[in-house]
Every structure is written in structure tokens, then in C-alpha cells.
């Protein structure tokens, strides 16, 4: 991880001083442990702010839509796939981008770590081969990194960036034989009432803060459907029906575009597993149309195209 940081700083310095880009989008150390924050560096003498470790889960592709300037961006596997989606949706041009590909080892889930620390507050985090060392005021703990990966990272099969101009580390080996849809199948096996209840319990704590929407790189509509008032598609209260409508439509809106980067779940302040909605779409699209999101810039997204013989199980 140290080596990534150095490579990122070195590349940022070079690109900024040669005036190849106007800004570099990366991460800096967060003010709290386990929370690195996105950071925009515009000046070559500020590149030492840039940092990289396993707490860089925020999806940086979120900062790209409609940018007028030339930017370099640090991109993990999922970020790079979201960049491809942006390119397909004409949100930014390839010429504006210089992609610093960061082969990813999976990001860690701070919630699980904090839960297992039982209230002790880590002030500093260090990573050394496969271990996460947490240092607090009067304790020190070392945890196995693999055991605390974010759920979507544990089942990720595209850890290497799919599109890049330069790599900041060696390509990693992709995970093989991963069962990506075990939880979706578990829900599919239930009867309708159970399924309804399952999702009802899932979204019960929702406070409708829209953090999942704002963290999502795909949510760039000028006016979101939740903010539309004429007609008003969904109420703004935390009424159960409104919350359900919101989660349903949000999930449907990212169908065929979601890369399962986990930004939504990571951002949720009450820990709702919102990926339960989007993963069903991902599974169906893969099974029905054989499409995986963000892997190449030549193929249109699945809902923007059709084949004459598409399956139509529900049509009379």
C-alpha cells in the first residue's frame, strides 16, 4: 500500500507539472481512522496529500460527470468500470481523462471492524501484508484483512481496472469460483409474502437521507425523481410505502449500469444492505442478456439496445 501511495504521488506530480491535467482526483487520509476522503489536487506541490490504503472505498467516478477540465483519476476496478459507464453515457470524454489504475485488493469494511472493537476507538490504522493494525489510545490490535473486506469486495471478480493509462501497482490475480449471487438466490427461494417482509425489514431503518443516491456515481440526473413534484412520484416522508417506492425505483434506475462498487452501502448511515435490490438486476441482466456492466466501451448498455429474439417470459 505504501508503494501505491508513492506511485500515485509521483504520477500526480509529473502530470501536474507537465500540465497534462488540471487536477488529480484521489484520496487523502481521513480525519478519522478508517475513513479516507476524496481529494482534488490542483497544484504539484500539494501532491503529498494524496494517500492510498484499504479505506479508499468511495467511488471516485462520482466526481467526473460534466467536468469541463482535464483530470487524472485514481481508479480501482469498480471505479474504472463506472468510468466506462460515464464514457458510454457521454458524461465525460476519454481525452479529458488520465486514468491511474489501482489494482485493488478489496476495501475494508470499517463497520465490521468497529463492531468487533466493542467501542474502543482506533486513532490510527496501518496495513502490512494481510494484516490491519489498529492503534488507539490504550490498545493495539491486529486483524486479518481478508476477514474484514466489504461484502461486495469479497465477491468481486473485476479487481483490476478495465481501462487505464498507467498502473500504480502490479495487476492482481482475479478471484476465481466466486458465487456472486448466493444471497439473491436465497431471497428468490422464498414465497412472495416472505420476500416482501424480507425487504420491509431490510429498509425499515431508512431515514431517507439519500446518502446512497449521492454516493452513487450513476446518480447524476439534473432532477432526481424523488425531488420531482409535478407529478410527485414518491412522498418525502419516511412512510413505509414511500421508502419502498424510493428504494425500488432507485434500484431500477441503476439497472444495467450498476457495477456493484458498494458505495451506496458504504454511505448508508443506518447500514441498510441496499445492494440486495441492485444485485437482483445485475443477476437478471447477466442471465437474460449476457451483459456485464462497464467492461468495454463498444457495447451499448443493456437497456439501450435489444435483440430481436430477447426472452419474453412475462409477455402474453
Amino acid at each position, binding site marked *: 500500500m505504501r508503494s501505491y501511495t508513492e506511485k500515485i504521488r509521483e504520477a500526480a506530480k509529473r502530470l501536474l507539472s507537465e500540465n497534462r491535467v488540471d487536477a488529480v482526483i484521489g484520496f487523502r487520509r481521513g480525519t478519522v481512522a478508517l475513513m479516507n476522503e476524496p481529494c482534488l489536487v490542483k497544484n504539484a506541490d500539494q501532491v503529498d496529500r494524496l494517500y492510498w490504503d484499504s479505506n479508499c472505498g468511495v467511488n471516485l467516478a462520482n466526481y467526473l460527470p460534466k467536468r469541463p477540465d482535464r483530470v487524472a483519476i485514481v481508479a480501482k476496478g469498480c471505479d474504472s468500470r463506472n468510468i466506462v459507464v460515464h464514457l458510454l453515457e457521454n458524461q465525460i470524454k476519454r481525452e479529458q481523462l488520465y486514468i491511474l489504475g489501482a489494482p485493488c485488493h478489496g476495501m475494508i469494511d470499517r463497520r465490521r471492524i468497529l463492531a468487533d472493537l466493542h467501542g474502543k476507538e482506533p486513532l490510527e490504522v496501518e496495513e502490512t501484508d494481510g494484516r490491519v493494525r489498529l492503534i488507539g489510545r490504550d490498545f493495539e490490535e491486529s486483524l486479518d484483512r481478508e476477514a474484514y473486506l466489504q461484502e461486495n469486495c469479497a465477491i468481486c471478480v473485476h479487481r483490476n481496472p478495465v481501462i487505464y493509462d498507467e498502473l500504480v501497482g502490479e495487476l492482481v490475480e482475479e478471484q476465481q469460483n466466486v458465487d456472486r449471487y448466493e444471497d439473491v438466490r436465497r431471497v428468490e427461494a422464498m414465497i412472495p409474502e416472505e420476500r416482501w417482509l424480507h425487504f420491509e425489514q431490510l429498509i425499515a431503518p431508512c431515514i431517507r437521507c439519500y446518502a446512497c443516491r449521492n454516493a452513487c456515481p450513476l446518480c447524476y440526473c439534473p432532477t432526481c425523481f424523488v425531488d420531482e413534484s409535478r407529478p410527485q412520484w414518491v412522498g418525502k416522508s419516511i412512510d413505509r410505502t414511500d421508502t419502498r417506492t424510493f428504494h*425500488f425505483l432507485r434500484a431500477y434506475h441503476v439497472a444495467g449500469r450498476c457495477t456493484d462498487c458498494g458505495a451506496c452501502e458504504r454511505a448508508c448511515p443506518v447500514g441498510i444492505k441496499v445492494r440486495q435490490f441492485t444485485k437482483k438486476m445485475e443477476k437478471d441482466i447477466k442471465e437474460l442478456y449476457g451483459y456485464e456492466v462497464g467492461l468495454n466501451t463498444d457495447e451499448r448498455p443493456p*437497456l*439501450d439496445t435489444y435483440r*430481436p429474439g430477447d426472452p419474453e417470459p412475462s409477455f402474453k
Partner: protein
Amino acid sequence: MTDWEPKIVAFLCNWCSYGGADLAGVSRLQYPANIRIIRVPCSGRVNPKFILAAFRQGADGVWVSGCHPGDCHYIEGNLYARRKFTLLNNLLEHTGIEPGRLHFSWISSAEATKFAETARKVVDAVKAAGPAQHFIKKQAEVA
């Protein structure tokens, strides 16, 4: 509950299914009166939000019908619609809506009998599913 009759919103495409419904009427074909028709330019015009909105406002069933694949007045509108609604239907059922509430069909403007037949099937299926509750707002629970 015995005299309950379902309310069904039908989005029919102007060029085919609406014509089919018209022909069914002109031909004096009998079909249940539970459907409220909304004429849309194309089945591809129907936004998933419309369907959710219909359920939220008390529809017990929704039926979307358009031209047969390949016969779309706009060449390909119904082919996009096909993908869109297949996914929508899957996600709705995955999240717990009973099967039988949401219906799709291809009916050309000459298929009056198919229209009447499908209308009967849709009404029967929605009747079997019973009054829709899931997307209707209930009184707020006061803690």
C-alpha cells in the same frame, strides 16, 4: 368482500393495442369492465414510474400492451420496452409483489378477439390476487 371488483390500469399503445380494443368494441365483443384504458403513443413510452404510480394510487393490477415485436410504429420502441418490463417485472416479484398483478401483452389492431381474451385473463388473474395492499399508503403508525 364478495362484491369486490378489481381496478386495472391498462396502458395501450395507440397504434396496435388501442386499435385492438377499439375493434373489440366495434365488434361487440364482451369482456369485463374492470380495465381503465390509458392511451400511450408506444409501449416504450411507459415509464416504470407510471406503473408504480398506478399501484400507489390504488390500482389492483396494471396491464401494458403494445404492437407485436417487429411491428412497432416506431420500429423498435416495443423491443426496448420488452427488456425494460422484463427486468421491472422480475424486480417487482423479487421484492414481494404477488405474481398476477402486472401483465404485458402484444396485441395488434386486428386482434380484437385476443384483446377480449387477454382482458378476461388479466381480470381473472388480478381477481385471484385480491385487492392490492403493498403500495398503498396506510395511516402513519405513531410510536
